[in-house]
């Protein structure tokens, strides 16, 4: 059976997930929580309220005065700041400011991220890689109650009729700097939280506490994939 310690790369949350009964699978150099022994129940819970650790999923960032020019030259379509735009290979390009881009993949097929990594070079660079894969953890909050739960931690109105799919709020969540991306999975409301990886255990604890009153659950990646359909 797969164990997270077999892998060189480990999410800060692997012990927390292990205590919650995670069953693991390999992905992108990590062992990731595939499920917690109840895929059907987890998938149903994910439509109501659930959280999952997506830290292992590939991501990258580019920042600098020439980011927009360079990234367009690489064939990436850029959205407006604080919006995300899905690229041909499925990667989400999240524009954090005029000069900063965050790229998120939803599975370990990260063709665009890999291609940009090879294309970039320090010589004549007008923008620079941001080490998002390690600087950040990535969690997802899914389900109908997720907006109400987020309101216990965040002062930005994230309700679905005020905060559209692929909207981004870079704000304070539980007194931490967090990038909140609305990124629905199938028909389910979902928010991805990208934030300082060293604070993952802290924020996870806040989320578990905040979702208790709604009966939220910790779920594995299989349940999130099932929502995506």
């Amino acid at each position, binding site marked *: 059976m797969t164990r997270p310690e077999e892998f060189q790369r480990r999410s800060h949350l692997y012990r927390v997930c292990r205590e919650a009964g995670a069953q693991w699978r390999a992905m992108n150099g990590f062992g990731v929580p595939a499920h917690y022994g109840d895929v059907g129940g987890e998938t149903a819970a994910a439509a109501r309220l659930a959280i999952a650790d997506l830290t292992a999923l590939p991501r990258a960032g580019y920042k600098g005065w020439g980011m927009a020019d360079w990234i367009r030259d690489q064939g990436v379509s850029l959205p407006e700041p604080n919006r995300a735009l899905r690229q041909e290979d499925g990667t989400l390009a999240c524009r954090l400011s005029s000069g900063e881009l965050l790229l998120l993949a939803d599975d370990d097929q990260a063709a665009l991220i890999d291609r940009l990594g090879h294309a970039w070079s320090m010589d004549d660079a007008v923008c620079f890689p941001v080490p998002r894969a390690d600087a950040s953890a990535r969690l997802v909050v899914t389900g109908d109650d997720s907006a109400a739960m987020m309101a216990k931690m965040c002062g930005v109105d994230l309700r679905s009729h005020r905060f559209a799919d692929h909207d981004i709020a870079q*704000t*304070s969540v539980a007194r931490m700097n967090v990038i909140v991306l609305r990124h629905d999975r199938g028909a389910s409301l979902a928010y991805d939280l990208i934030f300082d990886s060293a604070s993952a255990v802290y924020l996870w604890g806040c989320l578990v506490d905040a979702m208790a009153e709604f009966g939220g659950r910790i779920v594995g990646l299989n349940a999130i994939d099932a929502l995506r359909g």
Partner: protein
Amino acid sequence: MKIMPCPLNGPRNISEFSCGGEVEHLPPPDCDHATWIDYVYLENNTRGIVREWWYHTPTAYWFVAERDTRTDEILRTWPAGEFLAEFGERR
């Protein structure tokens, strides 16, 4: 809690920001002592309309806001680049 209209992020609780003080010219290196000491130690503490640097912490974003210190009303904001383009670059 007050709302700050951030040029990058839109209206946000003021707790997401910190103020960097009034926009001031850095004196040239060869200025006299008095000019330098005034710049370093003395705040203008203007009663009226001021232009201030503000920092949005979650995005590490500096911008300029025009504020009336009598009413605490924020009248206008600029991205740093636009402000400098409008009111002159400094080095």
